């Protein structure tokens, strides 16, 4: 980089004020005008704090102990609060992860977009309106006029993130800080928003600092990245070098944690399927108003799916595709309005008790799926409560064994969920589900809340257990990378219907439906090389 620097961070260190624990340690990097620069790291790596320091928006408990941040030749750390305010928004824009909370729910979109313009420009009201409409149109909002008077809750997560992007780009800042801008969105929307962000910023000459745990996504759009671990930069360089020739062990570990296609297995499909859902229809009741009941909303339009013994079937699709509803219906948490579900060839309502014993579920959010008032041991033991034929002592023994199997030793048994990390909690959730030795398991986004390296460990654990006990599994996920690693067969859903299904290699290599191709274009195929690096290959949409 020989050209002038837009932003230069030198030896930045941050610590938690009261405990003097260093959370960001001697971090330095430069960003050139118009460049897209990536910061990659897992939770706790300090990446978000480091970037919040760029605009002096650190939480009060965090204190800067060293370093300087030079933006356009001025030291941000020495600026007055007044100067900072006129710089934020106008010169440095911010996009955060959570589109649900980053827009004010009680203000119309029009007023929120106008706020920044009114503050930082001299445009008249009419000029502002024209600008806002043009920008909303550019970010792909279908009815910009209507959007002005609409409230944030009327838009989906992806649309909200577009609006957020519009509000930031209206001011044409010189630098955009995007902190996990698409993590909360599903794969297809994620890619659309990213493409839009890149297109807009390139057109305006805005530099971007893109912060994410998602290494392939960052690699796709950046030319240079830094990798952070525990508050330090462990590796910095061109994206290609870091991917293909990683030097630091942590970078190698990150790369080797990326999901990669497992070996194809042959599944015996001649015998009757373990679970068979036939023509499932699910209607959600319409919104009730004072006088009349709204029309019911159909979430599933007659969906059929078979899962054979020992088979892992992945159910993929964007949000709103009905994949979670189908999983929950099969789990018995949602009542079907039509169709039937067979377990080992018999209607499941003939013997619910038996079905319950044999069909278990792992939930997405390990923070809310474990009762916070129960110890790990009692959580697993509870799963055995209704299992007939084994006594108390045997149940306790089985609970300990199962914990051991998921990699949690006896010293975890008496802890509470809040004392465990997200990955450990998900291990408990898996232990609870398999303790009964079910024939069939439903896993609803079981790893999407986890960090990359933890996700790899949990997936490996899951595959090992699946091989050992041979349970069938319905694996629900929007992350096709994960699906590619674990699934035998893939079922693609869109708008409450199954649009394509087939064995994994067929779907991934020769997808037929356009929607499937769009899903696949959001994730790279990985080629491992002998130096521990990878080459990413992006699939084409058409």
């Amino acid at each position, binding site marked *: 980089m020989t050209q002038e620097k837009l932003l230069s961070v030198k030896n930045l260190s941050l610590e938690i004020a009261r405990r003097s624990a260093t959370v960001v340690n001697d971090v330095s990097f430069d960003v050139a005008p118009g460049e897209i620069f990536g910061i990659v790291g897992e939770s706790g790596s300090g990446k978000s704090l480091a970037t919040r320091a760029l605009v002096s928006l650190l939480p009060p408990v965090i204190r800067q102990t060293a370093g300087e941040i030079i933006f356009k030749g001025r030291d941000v750390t020495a600026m007055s609060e007044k100067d900072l305010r006129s710089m934020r928004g106008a010169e440095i824009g911010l996009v955060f992860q959570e589109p649900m909370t980053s827009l004010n729910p009680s203000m119309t979109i029009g007023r929120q977009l106008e706020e920044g313009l009114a503050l930082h420009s001299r445009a008249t009201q009419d000029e502002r309106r024209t600008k806002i409409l043009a920008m909303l149109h550019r970010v792909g909002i279908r009815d910009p006029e209507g959007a002005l008077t609409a409230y944030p809750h009327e838009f989906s997560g992806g649309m909200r993130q577009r609006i957020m992007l519009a509000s930031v780009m209206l001011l044409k800042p010189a630098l955009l800080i995007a902190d996990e801008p698409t993590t909360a969105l599903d794969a297809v929307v994620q890619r659309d928003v990213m493409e839009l962000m890149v297109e807009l910023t390139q057109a305006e000459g805005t530099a971007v600092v893109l912060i994410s745990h998602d290494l392939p996504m960052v690699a796709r759009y950046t030319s240079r990245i830094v990798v952070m671990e525990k508050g330090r930069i462990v590796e910095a360089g061109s994206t290609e070098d870091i991917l293909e020739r990683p030097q630091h062990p942590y970078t190698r570990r990150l790369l080797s944690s990326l999901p990669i296609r497992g070996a194809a297995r042959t599944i015996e499909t001649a015998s009757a399927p373990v679970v068979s859902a036939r023509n499932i229809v699910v209607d959600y009741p319409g919104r009730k108003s004072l006088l009349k009941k709204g029309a019911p909303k159909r979430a599933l339009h007659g969906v059929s799916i078979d899962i054979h013994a020992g088979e892992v079937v992945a159910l993929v699709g964007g949000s709103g595709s009905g994949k979670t509803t189908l999983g929950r219906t099969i789990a018995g948490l949602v009542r079907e309005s039509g169709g039937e579900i067979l377990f080992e060839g018999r209607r499941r309502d003939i013997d619910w008790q038996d079905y319950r014993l044999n069909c*278990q579920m792992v*939930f997405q959010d390990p923070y809310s799926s*474990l009762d916070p008032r129960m110890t790990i041991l009692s959580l697993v033991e509870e*799963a055995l409560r209704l299992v007939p034929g084994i006594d108390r002592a045997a149940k306790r023994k089985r609970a300990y064994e199962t914990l051991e199997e998921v990699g949690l030793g006896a010293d975890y048994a008496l802890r*509470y969920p809040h004392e465990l990390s997200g990955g450990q909690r998900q291990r408990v959730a898996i232990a609870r589900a398999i303790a009964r030795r079910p024939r069939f398991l439903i896993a609803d986004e079981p790893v999407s809340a986890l960090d990359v390296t933890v996700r790899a460990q949990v997936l490996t654990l899951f595959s090992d257990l699946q091989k050992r006990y041979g349970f069938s599994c319905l694996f629900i996920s929007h992350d096709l990378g994960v699906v590619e690693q674990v699934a035998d067969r893939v079922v693609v859903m869109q708008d409450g219907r199954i649009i394509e299904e087939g064995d994994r290699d067929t779907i991934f290599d020769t997808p037929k439906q356009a929607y499937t191709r769009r899903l696949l274009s959001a994730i790279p195929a990985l080629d491992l090389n002998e130096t521990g690096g990878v080459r990413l290959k992006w699939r084409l949409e058409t």
Partner: protein
Amino acid sequence: MKFFSLNGLIGGVLIAALLIVAATSLFWTPFDPMKLSFTARLAAPGAQHLLGTDEFGRDVLSRLMIGAQASVWIGGLTVGLAVIAGTLIGLISGYARGVIDGVIMAINNALLAFPGILLALGLLAVFGANQYGIIFALGIAYTPSMARVVRGAVLSLREREFIEASRVMGNGEIYTMLRHILPNCLAPITVLATSMFGWAILSESALSFLGLGVPPPAPTWGNMLAAGRPFLEQAVWLGLFPGLCIALTLLGINLLGDALRDRLDPRMRGLK
């Protein structure tokens, strides 16, 4: 890890003192609290009568000790009644939702809209002005707010995934309610119950002050306060000491309640 915070400790000491005094008074008081003595009317606090005597020459300290009994009884039983009834109603209402919830909450809200002390006054007229009348009246008056709080907690809890996990395991509704929902409601219940204990003592005092509580000559802090009112200018201790007892007890209860909530929630353990 500290077992209790400093505040919790202060609260604990105050409440322990209340309980010890109440228990002691069952066996021993410095004087007979009912014994009239016309020679020692309105005696100021001193060596003989530590906290002075009232207009009939009865020993204030002894009467306060007996009054502590009444407070503990009335406070404890009132809260017990409100907690049991309120939790039950709240659990059923929050868990069943739909029509049952609608009906229960309509009645509940109607009761809530009615001032608690007025409701208690009305109920006292039915039950009769005595110790048990007060307990029933206040217990019923406090039940709606407890039901409301428990229902709110249940509504938010039942959307959590661990409740669904319990259903997937095949656990029955009642088991799920008792094993997963109720224990997670304990924190708000404890906090509300401790403040209710305070309210109950205060309301008992207020009702007795109005002459609708425990009838004289049996002493309670409230009717002592009421009886002392005409003499405040000559004998300030008649109002001061019962008032102080009420204030300290409320303080102790509130401090203890906060500390208890922190202890009861496993998520709070180990944080400090």
